[in-house]
């Protein structure tokens, strides 16, 4: 082997070779760059919010600036971090490798999706720097269509544009999974990450157009005073909530399904076992994707929907919780009688399990009609969805990122720092959001700039936790960056993992494989194969 083998990273160097690349791996990295920037922005807004909330009085920001902070935190994190993070970064990078394919089905479309994403992001950033937006990331009418004087439509345009990137990526991945599987790679030999990405694509394709329509309707009302949502113009404010959540609830599954897929990979690999109940885990992803479309009005139990529709939506919400429970039990059972190798990705995966467990189970509390009336729009809900979207989605993303980092970069990061960071993030996260459950049940409403004195102790705890959390995230940024220059060479398969992505060199060749792989085994045949050290 030559000292510097040809890889997708070193075969071309010019800026144009990145900006015009059709290589799914490079596109994945370009998403990583933009998402990291958005995560930094969103994190900055969160820092300001937690600083302000350390005292009951509004002493750091004006009311309007505070309102802009939590709005822009939500917009940056939801639309530009959580939704693209795992599908667009890890999905782009590993999906074709897992399938034994040279690339995605439509490489040019893939590049176009990135540009659309960036254009949407730029519009949103422009809206933020030229005055910001203060509607809350939920854009509820008639506040957003009538009352707000901030950059609602510029932000809406950013979200609208970005949605097309999500739709096209979903479409691309779905076709790729159907058409580009290696010979012998039957549906039930697919890694579970692929099943998760498939289910996610379904949601992206079917759900995202609805948010586009919703934003468009909002624009029509705001510009032309055409009564759609504003009661004063003859519209219905609650209609907006139905339309918004018809996308935005399934969007939670766009955020959480792919990390769940990554967790299945990591747990199987580091337990040295096949996943327990493969087909149940696979189909639970599809069940979540489909039932996820039928629960949107559980965000609206106090919004004036009928008692009977509330009953239906509460019931369906309990139904959609079951596939998530099934996954959790199967992951746990996978570890039983495994040979558990506690490397950094596994530590991140266990941290994911701990936080996702709390996030999921508190969902059973918010879905309970009689209790939700009290906790709706309080910090209880804030804590719950952060446990799912950060504790679940972001931890799952980090588990996947640590798992595939050697493949992506060809380098190993500091194992010890990665474990330390996982524990710091886990501790910081619990300290940030744990007290918010108590605050919420006490009755502290969300989006409050100023709050009664008796809530201060818990808010200070939460802000303290946030600073620990920030240290944890910064640490990840530092040791991963250091690894790029000083990390040990990884070799093709540092984790001795199954899966086609580990059969090619690290970093992979420009076109992934030297010869077309042929698959003769199920995924995760750890127990029955000879593990080879390269």
């Amino acid at each position, binding site marked *: 082997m030559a000292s510097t083998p040809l890889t997708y990273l070193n075969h071309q160097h010019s800026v144009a070779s990145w900006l015009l690349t059709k290589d799914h791996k490079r596109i994945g990295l370009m998403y990583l760059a933009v998402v990291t920037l958005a995560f930094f922005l969103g994190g900055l807004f969160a820092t300001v919010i937690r600083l302000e909330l350390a005292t009951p009085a509004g002493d750091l920001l004006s009311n309007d600036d505070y309102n802009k902070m939590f709005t822009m935190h939500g917009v940056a994190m939801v639309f530009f971090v959580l939704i693209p993070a795992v599908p667009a970064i890890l999905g782009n990078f590993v999906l074709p490798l897992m399938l034994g394919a040279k690339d995605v089905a439509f490489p040019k479309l893939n590049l176009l999706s990135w540009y659309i994403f960036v254009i949407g992001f730029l519009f949103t950033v422009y809206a933020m720097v030229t005055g910001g937006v203060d509607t809350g990331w939920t854009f509820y009418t008639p*506040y957003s269509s009538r009352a707000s004087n901030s950059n609602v439509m510029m932000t809406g345009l950013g979200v609208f544009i970005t949605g097309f990137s999500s739709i096209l990526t979903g479409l691309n991945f779905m076709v790729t999974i159907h058409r580009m599987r290696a010979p012998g790679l039957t549906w039930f030999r697919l890694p579970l990450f692929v099943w998760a990405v498939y289910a996610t694509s379904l949601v992206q394709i079917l759900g995202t157009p609805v948010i586009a329509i919703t934003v468009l309707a909002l624009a029509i009302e705001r510009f032309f005073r055409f009564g759609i949502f504003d009661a004063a113009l003859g519209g219905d404010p609650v209609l907006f909530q139905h339309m918004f959540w018809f996308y935005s609830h399934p969007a939670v599954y766009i955020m959480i399904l792919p990390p769940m897929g990554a967790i299945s990979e990591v747990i199987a690999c580091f337990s040295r*076992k096949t996943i327990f109940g493969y087909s149940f885990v696979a189909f639970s992803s599809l069940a979540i994707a489909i039932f996820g479309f039928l629960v949107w009005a559980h965000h609206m139990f106090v919004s004036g929907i009928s008692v009977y529709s509330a009953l239906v939506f509460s019931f369906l919400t309990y139904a959609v919780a079951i596939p998530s429970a099934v996954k959790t039990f199967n992951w746990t059972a996978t570890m039983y*009688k495994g040979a558990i*190798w*506690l490397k950094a990705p596994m530590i991140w995966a266990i941290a994911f399990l701990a936080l996702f467990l709390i996030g999921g189970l508190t969902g059973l509390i918010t879905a309970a009609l009689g209790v939700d*009336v009290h906790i709706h729009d309080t910090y209880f809900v804030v804590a719950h969805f952060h446990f799912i979207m950060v504790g679940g989605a972001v931890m799952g993303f980090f588990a996947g990122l640590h798992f595939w980092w050697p493949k992506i970069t060809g380098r190993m990061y500091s194992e010890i720092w990665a474990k330390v960071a996982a524990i710091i993030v886990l501790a910081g996260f619990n300290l940030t959001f744990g007290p918010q459950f108590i605050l919420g049940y006490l009755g502290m409403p969300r989006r409050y700039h*100023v709050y009664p004195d008796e809530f201060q102790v818990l808010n200070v705890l939460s802000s303290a936790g946030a600073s620990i959390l920030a240290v944890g995230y910064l640490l990840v940024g530092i040791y991963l960056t250091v690894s790029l220059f000083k990390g040990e060479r990884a070799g093709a398969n540092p984790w001795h993992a199954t899966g086609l992505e580990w059969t090619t060199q690290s970093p992979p060749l420009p076109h992934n494989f030297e010869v077309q792989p042929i698959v003769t085994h199920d995924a995760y045949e750890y127990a029955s194969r000879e593990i080879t050290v390269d």
Partner: protein
Amino acid sequence: MGSGFSLFPEQASTIASRVDNLFLFIVAVTAFFAVLVSVLVIWFAAKYHTEDPLAVGESIHGSIPLELAWSIIPFLISIVIFAWAADVYFDLQRPPDQALEIYATAKRWMWKFQHLDGQNEINELHVPAGRPVKVTFTSEDVLHSMFFPSFRVKADAIPGRYSTVWFTATKLGEYHLFCAEYCGTKHSGMIGKVVVMEPAEYQAWLAGGLGAGSLSQRGEQLFSDLACNTCHRSDDSGRGPSLVNKFGAPQELANGTSVAVNEAYIRESILTPQAKLVAGYQPLMPTFQGLLSEESVMALVEYVKSLRTTSGGEPRSAAEPGVTPPATPQKK
């Protein structure tokens, strides 16, 4: 309104303990599963831990009985939670017939309450202990949400619609009123308090703050000022239907369907009269959309509700011992 640090909210209404019991039950059930899974994960990680990257686990592919067990058991537990929570929700959404009625409007950034006797208050609500209170409210601008954490009740204030919350306060004192739905600049300043008083004290408070007549008297004044009474007469001789004894009864409509006459229907009929036209009448009534404040509409609604012949045993006047009929203006 507790000023000290606490971990659990005060229970100051009859429904509060029911909500809390349900909440604590779900917390207990979910904590059990959280601990179960956590213990198993940590136990497996410790017991089967290996430093040898070449070690492999046992070849176990799954178990149908286990899959069924951990699908069906959580589902059955969910059904129990669902049904219990639905039962509490039904009670939260259904005010009792004998409730003391109060009207409110939300606008950025204040709550205005109107008592039937005519008293108005802003960001403060005085209520008697031990008696069901029903607040009917709407918003004049954007969404708001009326939230009494110590009572465990909340409902959004929605422009163009009436919402209600009801509660029976059980403990004297002052408790928070929050706006829970984001409404712009001073959202976190749109707060107030509810003052729970002994019934006798409440009566004294009502007597002390009398304004320009009761809410229904104000409605009656509006009814003649707006010339509603030229068409809506006490008998059926007018161009519009008589409004006497209409409230609470079903009403046949021109399109063949029927509608229950409640506050929302009266409001709609004032603002958009053609939307649900009463059978047998011409669409002659002008719209009052944009011409009346929500407070005036509420006064008119209350007036229409008060139009009843006193003889027939209507539910609203069937007073329980010690409970004053809310429709009757004299409460002393």
